[in-house]
């Protein structure tokens, strides 16, 4: 296989919201930057097709519009998972720069009259969500990064981080069309690969018909874990509400603009599940829909018919900014929101943080640094970050701290360690071997069945043990998976990485003997939230035998 070698100060793995903002900040600080992305960065990742909300407090006067209110809400709503010192440094301190960054790349958060259109949802104390037209945000960011002089390796999927003498010295991957092996030597490496999807069965049977981007498959978490990094908050399941059949983002727009969930008898039922009703947290909305269906009061719909024409127009437009094909779905289904109810269902599950202001994944400190020297993480693959606002700000923070790190003598820029490289090569290209016969889809399907059965919204020690044992059986088939193209080789690496994340997820969930954040971690055998014992994170890393091990890290909110 052909090989390409490059050298740089900073290597960014994943050119999405976090990665591209990190790249711009690192360039501003004068560092050399290489970005590796498994797609082409102008249209890759979660908001390839568009995006429509950015969460911000703007200090306009009311007490809800302040840093204190944001931190207070985060502490209450993500209690036990969020680390406020980190949030303050990676979000609050970078927020102004982030808002300016949108202007600088040509995708302002403001309307043409210079004001912000703001909506409220998910239990937040005020209208923190700035609505904007982010349909072109991704191409604009991509172009800005190229213009800033970053070297971009499009369609190069990262397979592993390179370590020498306990320090990160680069990463290796391959091109998903040509198969070329890429080795990038770097003083600091950022993982910004956007979280883990496709872990759970999709109700339609179409694995790629999922809420979040199906190209983000926990690669970064698995890579970091193999390199010795700690993961945290990975026990949590995340679900949303979707138009039945179409697993699309858009709930925030529907709820934020005043849509109301009703059951089969036409009753608005959410107050039964949360005092805030439709303004309650996302997991409560999911709980409400599950509850109504279980009680045979389904099907469940969202009713937008009472909205005035102007609000409806805004809603339909903003839905199309978030998911470009929403209008096609309405048209092909014959749905008109001013006239019809929209049937709602719960989405597939995913591994994710508890809510919009707290994430899951690689454990970071206030510098976005991990426990492995030279390795940083940001965006949805970092344990503290979630959503566009935190992906953008953590990217900015990481770009700055990595620039400092790379200029420092701590970053020695060590050469790559050849035996490690040989091992990675062997592992990557192994599935091309003709003696193998299984399709990655079959492997993925079984993995999803195992997680859906044992790690869904109702968990128990017994069910999780069974899931673990099933993963042991599945693991034995790993070396049967055959890739016939480099595209399929990429998918094969994805399902392997998903398996690694699944292991870490089960390990943490079995360890946490309580329930927290509704269906995010709901144990039949330990149904109560137990702050006395479990107020904090479970860190998972790899022990010397290669198995996940846990450590409880208490968090103090006083």
């Amino acid at each position, binding site marked *: 296989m052909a090989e390409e070698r490059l050298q740089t100060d900073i290597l960014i793995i994943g050119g999405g919201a976090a990665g591209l903002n990190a790249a711009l900040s690192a360039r501003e600080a004068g560092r050399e930057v290489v970005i590796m992305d*498994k*797609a*082409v960065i*102008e*249209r*890759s*990742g979660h908001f*390839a*097709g*568009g995006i429509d909300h950015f969460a911000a407090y703007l200090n306009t006067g009311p007490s809800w519009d302040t840093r204190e209110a944001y931190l207070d809400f985060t502490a209450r709503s993500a209690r036990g998972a969020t680390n406020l010192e980190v949030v303050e440094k990676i979000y609050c301190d970078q927020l102004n720069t982030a808002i300016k960054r949108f202007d600088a790349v040509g995708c302002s958060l403001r309307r043409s009259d210079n004001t912000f259109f703001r909506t409220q949802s998910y239990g937040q104390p005020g209208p923190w969500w700035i609505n904007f037209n982010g*349909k072109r945000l991704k*191409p604009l960011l991509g172009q800005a990064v190229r213009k800033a002089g970053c070297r971009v390796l*499009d*369609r190069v999927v990262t397979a592993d981080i390179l370590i020498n003498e306990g320090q990160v010295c680069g990463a290796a991957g391959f091109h*998903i*069309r040509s198969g070329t092996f890429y080795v990038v030597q770097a003083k600091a490496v950022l993982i910004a690969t956007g979280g883990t999807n496709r872990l759970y069965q999709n*109700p*339609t*049977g*179409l694995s*790629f*018909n*999922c809420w979040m*981007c*199906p*190209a983000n498959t926990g690669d970064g978490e698995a890579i970091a874990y193999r390199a010795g990094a700690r993961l945290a908050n990975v026990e949590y399941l995340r679900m949303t509400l979707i138009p*039945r*059949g*179409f697993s*699309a983002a858009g709930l925030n727009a529907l709820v934020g603009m005043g849509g109301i969930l009703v059951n089969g008898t036409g009753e608005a039922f959410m107050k039964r599940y949360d005092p805030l009703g439709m303004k309650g947290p996302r997991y409560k909305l999911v709980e409400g829909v*599950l509850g109504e*269906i*279980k009680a045979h009061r389904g099907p469940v719909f969202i009713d937008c018919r009472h909205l005035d024409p102007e609000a409806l127009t805004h809603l339909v437009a903003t839905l199309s900014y978030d*998911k*470009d*094909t929403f209008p*096609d*779905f309405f048209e*092909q*289904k014959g749905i008109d929101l001013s006239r019809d109810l929209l049937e709602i*269902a*719960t989405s597939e599950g995913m591994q994710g943080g508890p809510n919009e202001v707290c994430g899951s994944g690689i454990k970071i400190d206030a510098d976005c640094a991990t426990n492995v020297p030279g390795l940083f993480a940001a965006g949805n693959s970092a344990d503290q970050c979630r959503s566009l606002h935190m992906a953008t700000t953590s990217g900015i923070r990481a770009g700055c701290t990595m620039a400092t790190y790379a200029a420092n003598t701590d970053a020695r820029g060590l050469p790559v360690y050849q035996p490690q490289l040989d091992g990675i090569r062997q592992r990557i290209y192994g599935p091309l071997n003709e003696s193998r016969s299984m399709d990655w889809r079959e492997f993925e399907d079984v993995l999803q069945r195992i997680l859906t059965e044992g790690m*869904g*919204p*109702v968990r128990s020690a017994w069910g999780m043990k069974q899931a673990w044992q099933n993963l042991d059986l599945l693991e034995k088939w790993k070396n049967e998976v055959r890739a016939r193209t480099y*595209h399929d080789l*990429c998918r094969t690496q994805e399902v392997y990485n998903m398996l690694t994340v699944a292991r870490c997820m089960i390990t943490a969930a079995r360890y946490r003997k309580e329930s927290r954040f509704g269906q995010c971690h709901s144990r039949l055998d330990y149904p109560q939230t137990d702050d006395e014992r479990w107020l904090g994170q479970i860190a998972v890393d790899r022990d010397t035998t290669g198995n996940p091990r846990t450590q409880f890290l208490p968090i103090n909110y006083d």
Partner: protein
Amino acid sequence: MPPVFDANLCTGCGTCEDTCPLDVIYMDEQNGRSFAKYPEECWHCGSCRQECPVEAIQIRFPLRVMVPAGVVPY
């Protein structure tokens, strides 16, 4: 299955191939036009359609999205 290409409009410029986050779209070596090589890996994100300079792409949802019957959640 999404996306659907209008062969009469497509100029074979290759833009859509470069805009797909899931590597679904390839160029047909015989006729120089784009096609969905991995249609079941489409995320219905609409990136290809937005970028096609001659509006040759439509999104047509698969049957299982249109008729989502049969699965009882948990």
